């Protein structure tokens, strides 16, 4: 493990920006996915409020956890892929349930 430990870089700007920006994108798209696949569809009365409330735990959770990545680059790559995946899932759900 000791040689792995030396791989860890602080990369404050890289990791923080990944967590804040990509965390936001991930939260919005995952909330959207849940809105579409969850019961009653996205237009159910006042469901938009529930969808709104899903955003902060995902967004802030991502922003807080992203210092576990060993570098800023890895954070951007992983979270970027997660964004694309979540967006794809949301579009798929939308086309299936629309």
């Amino acid at each position, binding site marked *: 493990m000791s040689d792995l430990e030396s791989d860890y870089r602080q990369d404050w700007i890289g990791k923080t920006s990944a967590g804040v920006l990509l965390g936001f994108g991930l939260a919005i*798209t995952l909330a959207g996915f849940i809105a579409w696949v969850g019961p009653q569809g996205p237009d159910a009365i006042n469901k938009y409020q529930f969808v*709104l409330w899903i955003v902060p735990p995902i967004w802030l959770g991502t922003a807080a956890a992203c210092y576990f990545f060993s570098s800023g680059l890895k954070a951007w790559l992983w979270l970027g892929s997660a964004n694309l995946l979540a967006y794809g899932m949301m579009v798929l759900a939308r086309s299936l349930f629309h």
Partner: protein
Amino acid sequence: MRSEILRTYRKVHTWTGIIAGLFLFIAFYGGAITVFRDPLTRWVDAPNTAASTDFDRAGDLIAKTLAAHPEAAREFSLLVSEKRDGSVEPARDVQLSWQKSRRDGAPFSASLDAEGALKVAQIHPSGLFPFIDIIHRTGGLPFNRDIGEWIMGVVSGLYFLAVFAGVIIILPALAREIFALRIGPNVKRMWMDVHNLIGLLSLPFHIVIALTAFVFCLHDLMLPALDKVVFEGRLPALIKAGNPGSRPPAANSPPATMLPPQVLLEKVAALAPDFQPTRMQYRAFGTQTATLTITGFDPRHMMRLHGSVVVSPVTGDIVNAEYLPGHGGTWATITSAFFALHFASYGGTPIHFSYLLLGLAGAVLFYSGNLLWIESRRRSERKNGSDVTQTRATRIMAAITVGVSLGCIAGISSAIVIGKWVSGRVIDPDLWHMTAYYAVFAGCVLFALKRGAARASVELLHFAAVVTAAIPVTCFLAMIFPALKMEADPQINQAVFIVGLVAALVLFRLAGLTQRRVEEGPADSIWSLASSPEFQVQRRERRFPALSLPSIKLRQR
């Protein structure tokens, strides 16, 4: 866990904490008081409130008021309260009130006298507790409220990061040291234990408060993004559909007969027998499109600030029960629970007092966090051989911590005292308590910067204690001198007296303990007055007296 990760999270915790800590202190202290805004508003306004009318005559009151003041038909409210005359039968009183415009702070209030004649008076309700609520929401930042709330939204995000990082860094030590509270000569260790203990025990509360505050402050950032990405532009319509009570009634709607208020309350009571109405807000009264929003509470359920139900006064039909406790749809009920967890609007008085304690414990958490920051920096400086002369940043941070925290406590206490004494006596009570808060707060911060944290901590604690003691004194004077016309409901007055007295005594005790620490603490500690300029004139930095940790030093016996 890798040591680098732990080190990183220690830094995340330190810096998010030091940036957000003092804002959060103010938000938590103000919020703990805001939990009691309803009874406290009655306390501050009493007895200079408008006259009440028997609820049975509410229909007559409306008719006579609108005959004399037709402009009130656009929007007016019936304020409903339980009669407090000790009668066995539950009965209600009512006041009718309306405003010239939404922003008008001086509403008109109408009542009927014993002969049934209409009496109208303009009242000047105290804005004291709405003001403390704004301090809670904006951290007391003197900007426009939107800017203040945006800043507090960012602060809430940092707060969540601090909580997350705090949990990560404590995990390795958790198994070893859980619930350790090492009271002893190592004051820093003791503060660290206090900080960890409060943080861990109230962890669920802090997660909930951080996330909910984030939504309250920053929903205007998230909703447009959701509208674009998820709802494809349908969101404004969805928001409107969920809340018909907020829709402005159509203009020039044909006239219609309104059902009497008693009948409308019975319709709601048939659906929700335990719902206790407090306010009936009419819009476009006397027309086909009239709406009535009935606000109230049911402590057995989790509500937003209150519960509410929209009724048609024409047909008596329930138009929207989404926010009627126990009758909302799935999604409104789930989100109401999130609101309730922040506002303590469930479970009644025991929950309110729990939130008071959790809020005050949170304030202690942030205060102790700042002290630990200062302590760690002091220690590293001593290792570097620079001994007790502190860097400018540490000195200023210590002074600001003491000034902001104690300034907030003293400022809110003085706003409450001034607010109560001017209530009903001046036209613009808001100016008085706002001036009191900001003058005392700014004064305390400047004083702490000038005097240094050591002396200021003792002196400002004494000051805050004296100002806070003026609250129970006010209650006492209001009670024994009815000629002052300040007496509130005896139950509320006694509760304010007791809580104010306990708060003042705690502050006096803290002042005494801090003084002892400053005078008798180890002389080599920079937390001692002994290292201040008066004792050691040769010290380089003379503008700022040395730091003294305003901490509880327990004597070794």
